[in-house]
């Protein structure tokens, strides 16, 4: 009958849908160049919902990585998907006031900005960059460097690097995730720790003269905010940059944000056959338990 070309892999009907280009664009975009991570749409509600700590995987699952070197070719995929998964986790955490965006050039570099909403550093808007070691997740913990060195006991006054390592002395895969680093960066501004400071001046001031410390902080915040509209330090298409409000540019985007449509892709796929079916009443595990169930015997 049909000549059944073996390699059409016809066993999976979904594969046959491959060539209709119309619907691919949504996903195809990110796949365009294989290495670019996929960024799901962010939605960051103001209320934090990050109470649940992520429990670890059982270490039994760790692969016996390339014992004979044969799997070197898939190594990049593992790294890429590890980072993608990390990014997905960040999004899931909905960290309050933190936005990150992986760089265009390297998935190992993430741009971010943190908004401090109260406390000593209130109104601070600090841009930063996260550098992830390329042997992630088996290497050191990621570095987090503020674009402008914030006046803070744990921030290096010259390089702007935050002392992350004190919180993650040893980066443990399955235990530690990048969102924790981001979370830590946020915590630092609300709960000030002066032990073994990178900026001794700030530490001493905080201990001895809080008022002076406060004023220094205010200055620092002002300084940072005054540079907000500067070009990004790192030249990258995905670097985070701010610009003054311009209705012509921003109004539309704002409206779109507020009129958030659930699942915009729904319209795209209306014509598709695969719609999924269910006649199961919620809470039941009986098939056809919905009211309009068909005759049974």
């Amino acid at each position, binding site marked *: 009958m049909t000549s059944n070309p073996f390699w059409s892999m016809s*066993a999976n009907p979904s594969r046959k849908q491959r060539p209709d280009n119309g619907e691919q664009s949504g996903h195809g975009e990110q796949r365009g160049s294989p290495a670019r991570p996929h960024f799901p749409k962010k939605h960051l509600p103001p209320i934090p919902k990050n109470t649940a700590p992520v429990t670890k995987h059982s270490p039994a699952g760790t692969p016996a990585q390339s014992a004979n070197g044969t799997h070197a070719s898939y190594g990049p995929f593992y790294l890429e998907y590890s980072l993608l998964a990390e990014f997905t986790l960040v999004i899931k955490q909905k960290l309050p006031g933190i936005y990150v965006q992986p760089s265009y050039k390297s998935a190992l570099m993430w741009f971010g900005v943190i908004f401090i909403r109260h406390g000593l550093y209130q109104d601070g808007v600090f841009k930063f960059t996260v550098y992830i070691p390329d042997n992630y997740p088996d290497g050191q913990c990621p570095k987090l460097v503020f674009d402008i060195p914030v006046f803070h006991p744990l921030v290096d006054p010259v390089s702007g690097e935050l002392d992350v390592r004190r919180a993650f002395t040893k980066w443990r895969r399955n235990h530690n995730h990048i969102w924790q680093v981001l979370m830590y960066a946020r915590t630092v501004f609300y709960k000030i720790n002066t032990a073994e400071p990178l900026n001794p001046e700030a530490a001493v001031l905080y201990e001895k003269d809080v008022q002076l410390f406060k004023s220094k902080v205010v200055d620092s915040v002002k300084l940072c905010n005054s540079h907000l509209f500067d070009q990004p330090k790192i030249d990258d298409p995905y670097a985070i940059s701010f610009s003054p409000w311009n209705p012509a540019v921003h109004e539309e985007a704002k409206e779109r944000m507020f009129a958030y449509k659930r699942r915009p892709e729904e319209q795209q796929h209306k014509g598709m056959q695969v719609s999924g079916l269910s006649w199961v009443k919620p809470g039941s595990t009986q098939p056809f338990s919905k009211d309009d169930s068909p005759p049974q015997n």
Partner: protein
Amino acid sequence: MNSVCVFVCVCGQVLATGLSGLYSSLPTRLQVYSEDWHCLDPADWQQVPALVHFLHSLDFCSAVTKVAHPSIRSQLLGYIYDGFLVPVLAPALHKLTVEEVMTTTAYLDLFLRSISEPALLQIFLSFILLHTHDNVYILDTLVSRVNTPFQLGTVSLALFRTLIGLFCEDVMLQLVFRSAWQRLKNICFYPAGGSNEPHVVFCPCRYLIPCSHLSRRQRRSLKQRDCYSSSAASFLLLMPSWCPVYLHSTNARSEHIHWPKGAGRNRQNTPEGPKKDAHLNSCPSDLSVSDSVGYCRASDFLMDVNYLHYLWDARHTIANAQRACRFWSAPYDGTDPPAQEFRPDTPGDDIEDEEELIHRIKSDSIFSLVITSPPSALSPTPSSLEAVSNRAGRASSALELEWDDIFAGQDLCLSPSPSLPNGSEAAESGRSKLSPTPPQVLPLHIQEMQRTATKLVHGSYVEESEFLDDVQVYDLVARKDAKSAVLERMRAANQKASGSSSKGLHVGSTTSTVLTTTGKTVMETVNSIMSTRRRSEDEGRDERRKSTDYEITTTSEGYRNDEANNELETILERVEPPPFTNSFNVENHIITKSGDCDEERLQLKQNSENTTRQMGPNQNTQSDLCLDTNSLPNGHCEPQTPHVSANPPGSKATKNSSFLSQYCELMHSLGVEPDCDDMDDHHETFQRRVQALRQKLKEEDEFSTDFLWEEAEEEGETMEEEEEKEEERSSSANGGRRHGVPCTGPFISVLLSRLENLLENSISVNLLLTGILVQLVSYPQPLLRSFLLSTELHSQPSVRTLHQVLVSVHAQIERYVEDRPDYPALVTQAWRFLLAKDQDCKFRECLESQGGFIVLDPSLPNGSLKKALPLPPLSVLPPCPSIPPHAKSRVFAIVLFAEFLKELAAFAQEQSIAPDWWEEFESRD
């Protein structure tokens, strides 16, 4: 108005009867041109005018259903259900010959694919899921047929591909997720006491929902992601060692992921990059086609690039599946629907009356059809093995291969090695080390049946002797054939008793005796399955008798143990039936624990004294037996449940220890060393392990203690451990759940068992199998996803995962190729050819869909390819390598295996980053 209604009613009737009429004009047998054929393509059915007519009228029904008034619609659907599906299609699915049944299955598959109207589809699906024909659900019959070695199996697989492709919650619930209590509720139940009315008992196949296949920790981590692609890595590790994929491609790395740092400099050409939000500086891509095209220059670029295709496909398919499952009622994430109420350790929480309880108790015992009939039908004639096995053959034929499922779950429990506390580790390591003994091929009986059947078909049956070396066969045969099993068991026990050192040998020899006889009968069975079945329709009584035989067959273990129990019971003066002498555990013990042989032997001795008396045609004994047999868990699916559910709620746990001591006493008094201390042993080792683990964790902790999450985590973990410990403790107090066999349902076990046979399967079967598994892997439900993609060693040694099966296939391939040095080259050649052909097909498909216009869309992963590669004319394709015809399917199977691994890895990776499907349910509330 009335007249309109009447008219419509009549119209509905006409439609339904019209369907029936048209159906009757369909050819009852399809001429099948190739062995690969598995479903009716348009090209096929367009050649059959009757089929075209039928599909047209089905279309018409769809259309009417769509536009009609709800009441009329329901009437019409009712007519179709009662006038076509039940009276016409159901019998047609149980027709006389394999060919006819296969044809009907293909029709059903075609119908399901042709119906676009959900309401009409619902009717068809409910017919499949809920209708019982001869007390067997259509679905169960269909699932059992997947295992047939004929084309029927292939066609059935195709049907399931269609069913799974519907993304229908109801279907998946019944196939994969369900807990089976609800099935029982639909079945009428006749008390067994002397009644010769049939009662039907289905196993409570609590497939995935109860999470019994998961440890507590796994259950908690269901929703977690596999952050570091460890599943993918594990799958890819199973690639054949000589696999050509790795010949080069280390150079691909830098181009791929680690974007060259300086790559973004040139911003001149800015084609359509991803559109970012407007408020962010959007500076679209400059890394376009050229960077990834690098592959094309590599020698084997197809093999590399093809993983990207898999990833892309996976993403696309997963997104589709997520979208399709949007309207499901529950997320199936281990918490909703709640696993707890289906867990075996909560007996009797929803039992209202006694009958329900009996129901439930029975349900725990057998996954099969059990029909009781007057004891005269039992007529034990253990005189000739031949006769007995014949009977078993007929019996199972009456059940139409249902037994395939029955045993599928059973072999699982045979694997754990007795020496290690964690049996799965032993089994696993044994498998991966390519041990010289044959691997744990799960469905030996299926293989056996397949081979014998094939041989029969080819006209020359040769006795297969390679199965004989395995005790499992013995076990299987024993189960297939009650009386011979009892007999042989006793014989074996005697032999063991006489010279326990040469035990294995003796068992082996007895096995061979049994096998040769049953081997033939099984074959005969296969041959006569359908005819027996059909003829029996008007010989209801006859069939019932056969089924009774079957009952003996399936419950033989329980039978014997029941006797043993009776014996023990009398000795112990009505102590409650011991939880751990249930058939299945004993079964386990005899195979895995040499120590338990003593116990078994003892029982068998007792049995042999009592067999005749017990088996006599005594009405009381019979009914008694039925009940007891059933309440005795033989645990085809879940032997651990019986500990609880076989007991009247709350009665046994307390008496357990006292029983144990009495049991020990009894054994001592009989001069046998009881091994009732082995549970404590297990417990101790477990505790030691926990201790060691803790120590390790503590050491780790010393490095990093000052971060709050970790501490909380640690704490949670400790608690978790405590819980697990507690769980273990309580369960071991209940009689040791470590021998429990949680089951994942017949469908998954059938799929996996067929997959394990990959090397022997035809190409089309393998394509269907891998296709279905990929479909399943694309489902977003955490329960299913984690079950299929998890590559961790399961703490439940009895649960066979996809990964374990693949490990076994990998070992098979390595072993196979080891002896045939020409294979790697052959496979590589075939591989290149197939990949090129696939590529070509894709281009062609693309071309056709674009009307000859090649799109250069860099947003497509293969966009770059399209640009780089102009459409090659067909002649450019490498010639199909000359593979010896007998090797063809194996060579292709090996290629397919490797590609399947890639595909699975891709799905695992994409699943790990897919958006959380269940969040929708959270936000829905």
